[in-house]
């Protein structure tokens, strides 16, 4: 009798093993699956007069081979990898825009100044004058186009922001549901771990990290999630979803806000500083936007402002074919001033010295005693005193009135310049080629032509073409370093994956051997029942 029971326990154990092995084999390709194994132990022994007779085998539980540290390392590496990939996808497009140096802004700029030279050599030639006007329009159009491309990318980022935030929220909700399921499973079966549910939850965390870097705090078996610098995303059973909101400083710019609980119920959306969103596709996009898009757009704008204002200055010093004083040749937008929330005063900023322009964004604040001007790109304070600011970094801040405590403005001097650049002159006879007047007087045009190689930007270090080549170089450097980092990250991910898979991965050869082993085990155990039955038959057959 006992023998049958022992046999039964053996069959039980073998069948558990076989099923788990089958589960492993079926899930060999399942993402996030940690291979499972059955832990068995002896079923104890019975104490009888002649010794302790064993009672067979007992199944303890099903374990999953899971190393939390290795898994978290892998997740973090993949999160960084996703950020680099997202950044790389965007910057590749910008990089490709500049790929061919025979098309785009540089050759159009060259052709424009060639035409100015032609007018300087033959000021009375109407063909040369018309050509110059045509080339000027082409140049303005090229610069407008480059800006339009950047604006399109900006719009694309805004759209992706919306999609990503939705995905993040739904992943977080999924983790919340899994938390619930795991609690219920544990409540129903307190001594065993719900391995597959745990696998699913770990996978959901990994997928969420692809979108944004998330920290996990395990508390009583549930996962709490935090993002950024510790803002709560999922706490206990409450979800604090993310939202896409217009930025307080610049309503045209979409950014991410987290939710906090308001006293008295309800939630409040608080804008997250862009630099604190790291990791995952969202982190990569945000980094791309403030590191590359903003900077490139500002530098392009600086080029447009420099070209327009310097050219106008020389042009207005000359005389056209009708003997009239030169008018403005180019037109470009004034610095963009965005009023902060609740600001009462008025501020208008104008360009003072294009050579001193930095291409950075600024913030002006009045805290009651001091006027503080901060360079938003470097973070440095440019002006801090009780007197209102005058001319700083090539910008004139003095048109300031009605300032109250707490007023603030964001100033984007060159952000819109490239889109707004246009040619104001429509009549070629209005081109002020002469310095004194007279049909063959090209002296002013000679001065205009000299602007081509004059170092008018960047504190006397760059001419227009060099300012452009700097933009190309800057984008290229970012693209190159991203490419290198992505390659390095790829190999890091591979290494982490190897380490994690060494513990958790299913090896089909191993499972095959296990199958053979447990199959034999099952056969052997079932023989025991056979033998027990034969013994019983023998006993029954004794009474003749």
């Amino acid at each position, binding site marked *: 009798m006992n023998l049958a029971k022992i046999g039964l326990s053996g069959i039980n154990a073998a069948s558990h093993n076989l099923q788990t092995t089958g589960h492993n084999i079926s899930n060999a390709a399942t993402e996030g699956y940690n291979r499972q194994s059955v832990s068995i132990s002896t079923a104890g022994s019975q104490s009888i007069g002649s010794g302790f007779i064993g009672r067979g085998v007992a199944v303890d539980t099903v374990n999953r081979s899971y190393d939390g540290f290795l898994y978290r390392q892998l997740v973090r590496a993949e999160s960084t990898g996703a950020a680099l990939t997202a950044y790389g996808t965007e910057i590749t497009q910008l990089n490709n825009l500049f790929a061919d140096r025979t098309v785009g802004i540089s050759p159009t*700029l060259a052709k424009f*100044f060639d035409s100015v030279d032609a007018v300087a050599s033959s000021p009375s030639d109407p063909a040369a004058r018309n050509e110059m006007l045509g080339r000027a329009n082409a140049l303005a159009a090229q610069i407008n186009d480059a800006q339009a491309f950047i604006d399109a990318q900006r719009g694309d980022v805004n759209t992706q922001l919306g999609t990503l935030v939705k995905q993040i929220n739904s992943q977080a909700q999924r983790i919340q549901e899994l938390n619930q399921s795991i609690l219920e499973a544990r409540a129903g079966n307190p001594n065993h771990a719900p391995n597959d549910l745990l696998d699913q939850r770990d996978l959901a965390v990994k997928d969420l990290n692809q979108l944004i870097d998330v920290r996990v705090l395990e508390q009583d078996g549930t996962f709490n999630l935090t993002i950024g610098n510790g803002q709560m995303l999922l706490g206990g059973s409450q979800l604090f979803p993310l939202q896409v909101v217009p930025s307080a400083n610049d309503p045209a710019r979409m950014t991410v806000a987290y939710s906090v609980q308001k006293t008295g119920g309800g939630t409040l959306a608080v804008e997250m500083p862009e630099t604190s969103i790291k990791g995952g596709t969202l982190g990569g996009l945000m980094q791309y936007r403030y590191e590359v898009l903003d900077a490139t757009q500002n530098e392009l704008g600086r080029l447009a402002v420099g070209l327009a204002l310097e050219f106008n200055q020389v042009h207005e010093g000359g005389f056209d074919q009708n003997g009239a004083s030169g008018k403005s040749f180019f037109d470009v937008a004034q610095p963009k001033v965005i009023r902060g929330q609740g600001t009462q005063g008025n501020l208008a900023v104008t360009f003072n010295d294009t050579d001193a322009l930095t291409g950075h964004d600024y913030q002006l604040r009045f805290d009651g005693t001091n006027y503080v001007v901060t360079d938003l790109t470097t973070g440095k304070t440019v002006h801090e005193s009780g007197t209102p600011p005058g001319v700083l970094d090539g910008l004139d801040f003095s048109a300031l009135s009605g300032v109250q405590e707490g007023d603030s403005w964001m100033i984007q001097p060159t952000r819109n310049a490239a889109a707004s650049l246009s040619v104001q002159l429509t009549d070629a006879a209005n081109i002020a080629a002469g310095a004194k007047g*007279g049909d*063959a*007087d090209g002296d002013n045009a000679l001065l205009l032509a000299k602007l081509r190689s004059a170092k008018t930007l960047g504190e006397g270090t760059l001419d227009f073409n060099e300012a452009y080549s700097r933009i*190309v170089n800057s984008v*290229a450097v970012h693209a190159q370093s991203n490419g290198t980092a992505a390659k390095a990250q790829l190999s890091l991910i591979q290494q982490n994956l190897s380490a994690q*898979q060494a513990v958790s991965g299913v*090896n089909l050869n191993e499972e095959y051997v296990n199958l053979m082993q447990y199959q034999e085990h099952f056969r052997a155990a079932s023989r025991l029942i056979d033998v027990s039955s034969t013994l019983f038959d023998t006993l029954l057959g004794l009474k003749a």
Partner: protein
Amino acid sequence: MRISTSLFFQNGLQTINTQQGDLMHLYQQLGSGRRMVTPADDPLAAAQAINITQAQAINQSHADNRAVLSSNLSAEEGALGSATLLLQDLKTRLVEAGNGTMSDADRASLAEVLASTRDTMMGIANRTDGNGQYLFSGHSSSRPAFDENTGAYLGDNGLRKVQADATRQIAGNDIGSVVFAKAPDGSQAYVSAAAAGNTGSGHIAAPVVQDTQHAWVREARGFTISFQENTTGELEYIVQRAGEPPLPAVPYDAAAGKISLGNGDGVAVQVSFSGQPAAGDAFTVTPASDTDMNMFQTLDHLIAALGTPVSGNASAQANLDNALSSAMQKINLNYDQVLSVRASVGTRLNEIDALDGAGKQRDLGFSNRLSQLEDVDYYTVVSQLQLRSAALEAAAMAFKQIQSSSLFIMSSQ
């Protein structure tokens, strides 16, 4: 170390992907002939290439400017060449006219020749280029340089400067008043003339500078020689320098044949003088730089002088001779000036040639540098292509080999 099955497949895939990615980049390099497919491949070289392109474009622009300059100066050279021939012819005629006496008919025919020469010269001075712009008007190129009737200069002093090289602007024109109405720069010559109402038969010839270092010569001020009768009825003359009180009278010595203008430091200018001037006659000896040298007005005065009847009247004859002498002196100086301007045009054309040569050299340098930065080295890329293709094949084969050694597959065979 344990290898999971999925890791194995992933690794294999990763390797093949990486090799293919590298191969793709090599294909792009080969296909486009460019080492940098995008600026990210070599950011510094990309920026340098853009900068060098601008330098090359500027160089080419200067070359184009020089072509315009060259054509303008050639047109001017053509005009000056014609003017030179015309002036040579004119000088010959004037010398012929100065020899011996002319009959009224001779004078009339000479006047016609001079009028025709003047008109031809006016045509040259008011010549236009291919675009209808007047060559010698300075900046006001839509107006003729000279007034056809009065011969006055109508243009301005503007030089049509062209940027021939990075730091060199060359004028593509010369000003009409400088070419046709000015004595050569630095000329210390003096020009003599008889006053309009002279009644005597005094004949004044070309002045000759005796001492170039004399203060009077260096100050370049004109002299007036006025004839009067002294208390005893003898002819004497008074020399007065412009802006100075008159010098003491000197008795006129017809036999001497000359009048010396000088002071205690010696004789500054000497002028041949003959004939019998009347009291009240006046003559001027002025520096060429201070005299009206407009050749059209010179010719007009001479033509008018030729129109006055002369025969038998000694005074009229003397006036005509003086007018002729004056005109010849001035035309000689005009001729020298035209030659001088022609030489300057020639110098400028030479300089343009030299700049063209230098510009071509520079262009070659830029092209070379660009090629170094951008062009792909076909040998390197092709050999790398071979290497990578072999690596890809090896990786794929290795994968296939190991993959087929699974226990499941082997046990089913």
